């Protein structure tokens, strides 16, 4: 009798484990977009990175974004050079990343098309400095394909990004926009 119970319990455990494993899905892209805009004066200081790595897990909301700082493209090559050499020191700090969670992931119905508001909480690392970030955004579901959009501001001094023109031509706060289709 005890043996029967043990077999039954084992069966239920492995069935539950198998179901949980099947239920979890990891969405990924290597071509997400991150824009930033730090315009402080007349000249536009903005750039885009079209090779953002991002993944998230549908049932936990765990998510990561990673970009190569040298992958940001400016309209002006001189600005790009200054951004990398004088402000971001991208040879020393080649990557920026975000690791966190969509805290209300249970409110997203992946089986139903629509645009769902999401809350995101985590740690953003830029220029070798990690800070907590909390923001909101949307997750659009279309035909089972999720697309995340969000925007938040970062104070450059919080990430020890310093330079001659910050507060003048370069804004003290940069706006970061994220758009990732998985």
């Amino acid at each position, binding site marked *: 009798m005890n043996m029967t119970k043990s077999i039954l319990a084992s069966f239920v455990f492995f069935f539950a484990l198998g179901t949980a494993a099947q239920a979890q899905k990891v969405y990924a892209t*290597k*071509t997400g977009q991150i824009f930033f805009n730090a315009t402080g004066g007349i000249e536009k200081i903005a750039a885009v990175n*079209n090779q953002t790595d991002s993944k998230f897990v549908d049932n936990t909301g765990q998510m990561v974004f990673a970009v*190569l700082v040298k992958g940001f493209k400016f309209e*002006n090559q001189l600005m790009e050079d200054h951004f990398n050499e004088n402000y971001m020191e991208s040879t020393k700090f080649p990557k920026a990343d975000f690791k966190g969670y969509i805290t209300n992931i249970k409110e997203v119905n992946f089986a139903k098309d629509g645009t769902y508001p999401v809350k995101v909480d985590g740690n953003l690392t830029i220029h070798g400095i990690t800070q907590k970030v909390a923001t909101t955004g949307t997750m659009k579901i279309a035909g089972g394909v999720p697309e995340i959009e969000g925007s938040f501001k970062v104070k450059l001094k919080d990430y020890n990004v310093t330079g001659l023109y910050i507060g003048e031509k370069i804004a003290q706060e940069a706006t970061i926009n994220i758009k990732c289709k998985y």
Partner: protein
Amino acid sequence: MIKKIIIGAVIAIVAVAGGSYYYAFVYMKNKKFDMVNAEATSITSVELVKAFQTDEAGSNAAYLDKVLQITGTVSATGTTQTGEKTITLGSEDPFSGVMATIDSTAAVNVAEGETITIKGFCKGFLSDVVITNAIPVK
């Protein structure tokens, strides 16, 4: 005499300011890097991925922002969210390769399994080695 010096100084200041503005905001905005004739380090996609996987800091020092000429087998093709073409060259690791965005002026038509050579800027390593402004090499 003083009037001439002042006029000369004003002309010189205007010329320097105008020249600086033109260089910084007009010339540099329209400047196009000559990838076709740029000197490049030749390497295979297998070697490049292995180099970053075994010594990322050393590989960054060696390859970051350098023009590389990379030969490999196409493992995937696609587009970015803004419509730029991408080509991924395979490595010995099925989870990692060399992903290149193709320069908008370059014509490239390749299929998975083909061996090609591309040339572009190395921007570092995420899950793939990232290459930008790539052009095919004939």
